[in-house]
Each structure stands twice: as C-alpha cells, then as structure tokens.
C-alpha cells in the first residue's frame, strides 16, 4: 500500500476518538457488513488502526476515499482547531441568485486556474452550509492531504469560516471565493474561536436576544400576596435593571461559546488625577485580552453583578453586536480591518 495513503489513514484514525470512530464509519458506509462486525471498538486504537489498514487494502481504498471519511468526521465534529470568520462585501447584482451547483462549479474552476495542483471536495451539509476541503499543491508537488484547509460558506449569506489556512494560500482562496460568489471583495471579520457553531451562531444572531422594552417583566398583579411584608430587598430594582441591561448587551439563555476577545488600545491616557499623562500627545499603547471558557456568559455576569458598570460599554457589547472578537481602538474610533479586493477588470 502506498506509504502516504497509509500515513494519511493512520493519522486520521489517531485523531478520532474510538466511539466517534464507530459512528463516523457507519455514516461513511464503505465497510461491508462483515467488515463492520469484525471491528471491536473496545479494543485499543492501535489494534483498530491495524484492522482498518487491512480493510483498506482489501477494499482498495484510495486517497479520495480517506479524505471523504475525514470530511465526514470534521463536519460532524466541527468544534476543534481555530476557525476564523470572513465576510464577503460589495455584492454584484446577481450574487443573491447564486445557487449550489453554480457555486461549486465556479469555485472549482477558478481555484484550479489559480493553483496548479489542488484537490477540492465540496459537500452540502444539512443546514444550508457548503463545506469545502482543499488540499494544496503547487507547480512542483502533488496536493498535500495532511494539511487541508476547511471552509464553510453559508449560501445566501456573506459569511465564510475558514480553518488551517496559511498566509500564502489566503489570497488564492479569497480570489476563488469572490469570483464564485459574485462579490467584489472579502475581508477579515475579526472573529475567531475554537467552536465553529459558536462563532456562526454569534454572526448570524442565532441565540436568544433581548431587546430594550419599557416593561421588562410581566406587569405584576395589584393584589399580590407577599410571603412576608417586612422583608424588602433593597437592591432588587437595581439588580433587575442591571440584569436587563446585561441581557440586552449580550443575549439571554445559552450564549455562543467564544473563548477570547483581544483589544489593541491606542488611545490617549486621560485621568484627572494625573495631569502630566493627560497632557501627553502620544497614545498609551496596551493590549487587553479577555479569556474564559464562555466569554459572553462571563461578560454578561460581570454586567449583571455590577463588576462592569451598566449600561455596558460599546467596546464590550460590540462583540455580539458586530460579531467580532479582535478590535483595534484608536481615538478616532475602531480601526479599519483588512480587505481583499477583486482586481478591477
């Protein structure tokens, strides 16, 4: 068996936890019933790998088959690696009518024109997202399947999510994407995270949002029976207000799991207690990073508990509002983000 094929399969099996492996193989459906039954998933991974290598020879699988398996695994378990969000801008007049088949053809065609040896696999997921797997090669070498790039594009939206892309590959991918989707440019959305589902939910606002309202809670009954009229919570109203404002800024219920947010501050130092620094012309340069297992929930709790003053500052509420987690703040407002343009034809 080809050494690179063997190594590809070995690496893939090593990545997949045993239980998930069973589900993934079943979904893939390329094992015969007999072969399926011969796999005992309670055995150590080493043994399973040996078995699968044997089956691979038996069934004469090729690289195409293994990458298919890998894609199924990644699509079902997208919350690993680091995903970066991009946004397509300036749609052409016919961008809304781009449908799946057209997109697939155009993308493959444009990318093959740009990159001599490239292997592209595209698959539509159940939730209207197109998944693309790219193994990059160049004029001299065949596609490298060990370091593929994965791309997820929600059709009819301007959002694209990418993982494992090098800076050399970025312009090539951007070019192919804007040509295939009929947009004029693509820019960095300044949002990254480990969980694809979280950053997608954040950008597409698929979480419970709270809007400002005059009556935050249902109107209370006039003849309310109170358990003990002598007990009155002094802070009840302010606490409720804080909670309301916290939810307005970040959302209610379960929030998308972002891990971090980074702010690069280049603003002047202003403090009435320190005249010397306030008179200084140059900005006070610093970088602030917020990190948590669920950043938005932590920030919401900061606001509702009073650690963060309410109303929540736009710097923090921009995270869900703009769907970003990297900001450059200058005295003139947030800085420009990077853009990739379609060349003027």
């Amino acid at each position: 068996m080809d050494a690179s094929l063997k190594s590809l399969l070995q690496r893939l099996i090593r990545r997949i936890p045993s239980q998930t492996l069973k589900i993934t193989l079943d979904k893939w459906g390329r094992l015969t019933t007999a072969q399926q039954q011969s796999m005992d998933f309670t055995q150590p991974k080493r043994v399973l790998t040996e078995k699968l290598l044997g089956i691979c020879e038996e069934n004469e699988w090729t690289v195409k088959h293994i990458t298919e398996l890998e894609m199924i695994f990644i699509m079902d378990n997208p919350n690993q690696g680091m995903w970066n969000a991009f946004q397509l801008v300036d749609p052409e007049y016919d961008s809304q009518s781009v449908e799946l088949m057209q997109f697939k053809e155009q993308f493959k065609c444009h990318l093959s024109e740009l990159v001599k040896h490239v292997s592209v696999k595209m698959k539509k997921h159940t939730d209207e997202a197109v998944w693309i797997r790219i193994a990059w090669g160049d004029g001299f070498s065949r596609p490298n399947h060990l370091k593929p790039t994965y791309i997820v594009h929600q059709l009819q939206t301007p959002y694209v999510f990418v993982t494992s892309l090098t800076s050399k590959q970025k312009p090539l991918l951007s070019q192919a994407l804007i040509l295939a989707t009929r947009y004029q440019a693509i820019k960095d959305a300044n949002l990254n995270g480990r969980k694809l589902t979280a950053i997608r939910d954040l950008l597409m606002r698929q979480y419970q949002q709270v809007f400002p309202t005059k009556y935050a809670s249902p109107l209370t009954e006039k003849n309310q029976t109170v358990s003990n009229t002598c007990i009155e919570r002094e802070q009840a109203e302010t606490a409720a207000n804080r909670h309301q404002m916290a939810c307005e800024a970040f959302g209610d219920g379960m929030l998308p799991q972002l891990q971090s947010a980074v702010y690069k501050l280049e603003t002047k130092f202003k403090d009435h207690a320190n005249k010397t620094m306030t008179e200084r012309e140059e900005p006070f340069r610093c970088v602030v990073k917020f990190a948590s297992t669920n950043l938005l929930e932590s920030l919401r709790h900061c606001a509702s508990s009073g650690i963060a003053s309410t109303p929540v500052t736009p710097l923090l509420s921009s995270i869900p509002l703009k769907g970003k987690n990297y900001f450059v703040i200058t005295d003139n407002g947030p800085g420009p983000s990077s853009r990739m343009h379609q060349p003027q034809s």
Partner: protein
Amino acid sequence: MISSVTRTPLNSVVVQRRSKSKSYRQSYRSCLGAASRLGFTPALTGRRLNTSRRATKSHDITRKVNPEQLALLMKTELQLSYVTPLYQFRHTQLKSYARQLSAFIVAEKQQGLAVEVEGPQSSFRVSFSVVQGMVETDDDAETVFIQIHSKPLFARKDEPQRSVWIGWLTCINGNPDYLRSLPKDFICLPLFGSNGAEHLTSLVKSWFQQTFDCCFGPLEISDTSLQWLVALWTNCHMESNIQHLKMIWTLPVVPPLQVTYTVNPQDAWELWSSVRKDQQEENNRGEEVKDENIVDIEEVMRFTQGLKSHFYRHFRLNLSAGSLNQVSTALGSAKCSGRIKITNSKYMITTLTLLTECALLKMPT
C-alpha cells in the same frame, strides 16, 4: 575576587533569657517598632510590609557572584516557601549535610515501597553550596544552594546523572533588628525556593525540619507585593528594557474571566515617572527632603490606580473586583500562588529583598 571565607553571622546583642530551660526567639513583630519596647502589644495590622523601600540602581551582581552559580538561580520557575530560623546550621558543614540528605532520601525511598529487585534503581547525589557575594549586610546569612542529581529510571550504566531538583535558602536585606535579636545558635534563611518533583521537595523539607528544628510553610505573594513588583520592575525600564508590562487578573464571575493587560514598556515607564514626579512635588511642598532612590507605597498605589483607571475608562470594568494573579516583565514573573521566575540578574537583589520581607512576615511567631 570572591572571598573564600564563609561564616555564620555572629550575634552582637545579648538576649535576655526569660526562661532558663529553653532558648526562645524574640518575635518578629516585636522588632518592628519602638512601640513594642514600651510594652504595647502591636495590633496585628501593625505587622505589614515596609511602606517604602530602596529601588536601588542595578548592581552588577555578576561581578560579585560566580556567574555559573547565578545562572542556576535564574530562568527556572521556583515555588516559594518561608522557613523559620534554623537551629545550629553551619555553613562550614555543607559537605556533611549533603551526605546526610542523600542518605535520607535513599532511605525514605526504600521505605514501605515495593521491593526493587535490582537494588537501588537510582542513586541520588546531593550537593550543598554557598552562593557567595549575594548578601550586602553583615546580618544576612549567605545564600545556600542545594542540588539533587539522579539517574533517570531506565538509564544506561554510563549515562551521567542529571540535575533533577534545585532549591535555595536565602536572606537578602532582612530586618536587622530581628536578625540581631535571634539567639546565637539560630541562622535565619527565611526564603526557600525550589524547582523539581514534589516528592523530592517534601523530602528535603522533612530533612531540614528534623535536623534543624524548623518549619516550612507556603509563601503566597500578596496583591500588595505584586503591585510592588509591578512598580519596581517598571522603574528599571531605563536601564534594562522590560519589553512589556503584563498583568493578569481573575474576575469572580461564572465562568471565571481572566483579563490579561499588557502595557507597552515605554508608556508604562512614562506613567510611572509622572506618578513619581507628582509625588515628589507634593513632598517638596511639604518640605520633606527625599532620597530619589526611595519608592513609597503611595507611588506604587497611584501607578496601579492609573493603570486601572485607563482600563476602566474603556471597559467600565472594575479590576479591583478581581484579584491580581500574575505580573511579568522581561526581568521576571511572579504569581500569587508563590511561583517566581527571575530572568535578569541585575534586579534580583531588589526582588529578593521584597520576597525576604514577605517570608519574614509570614513566619509564625
């Protein structure tokens, strides 16, 4: 030239024995001020860190201390503990201590564990040495450096032993009143730092405890001490580029939020010097003559407050609601759990002076 004489400092003060049957040590607390001599019992809050300290310009410590030994003390992260004074510890007996500790470790390892068929799997070699030249006053005892070498478990016969554990005991600029008040047989090396396997650390501590009748305890680095380090290290920027001033806070929300605040070194330095200038102007108005080298706690607090208020202006988030966990610059890093790493030898003395003080304060009396 490094002097080759080691000595344990002599006590010049005669201590009144209150009880004839046992020697006792005067409490650290009672050395802190005149109030104690008048018979008042100082309140517990009277025991605190010095409110001002000397931010000495860098020493070229490499001229006084053997650079190889110095390298051993730096660049690894050490866990700190305090140690109470050691009874009858002699700097001249280090070779004997090394042998005793080595035997102790081997004996403890063979005790109660599964029988090793091939004899002792790894033999331990312990070395004690003095790091001469670090101390500046006659009252401080010389720093002692301990190293344990061992062969890894499945080593070949000819493979050399590797260093698996290091530790040191030190006292830098300890409170002279306290040090002089100790009875003759006690040596004070209150700051202990170690790096290596936990079981070796506890064996070393046990041996010290039973040989010198002392006790060890964890040394956390308090919020105030971390703020001191922030200020003292920033103070060094002109002489040695600190490269960044990084502070890490944890806020008590669910799930916990970690805030890493990294300031450009030049800007941090300018904020610090503006705080010092304002403070000096205030002092001059009060007509106090102040040594430029002395840093006051007020300056430190103002500096931290400045940093926090710049943060608040942007995020409206009160960092004081959380706890400062870690500070780091190119000179070193310190964590509130008591882990410290010194990466630049020039400011080691300043850092160790602060930590010695923390250790002396934390010791039970």
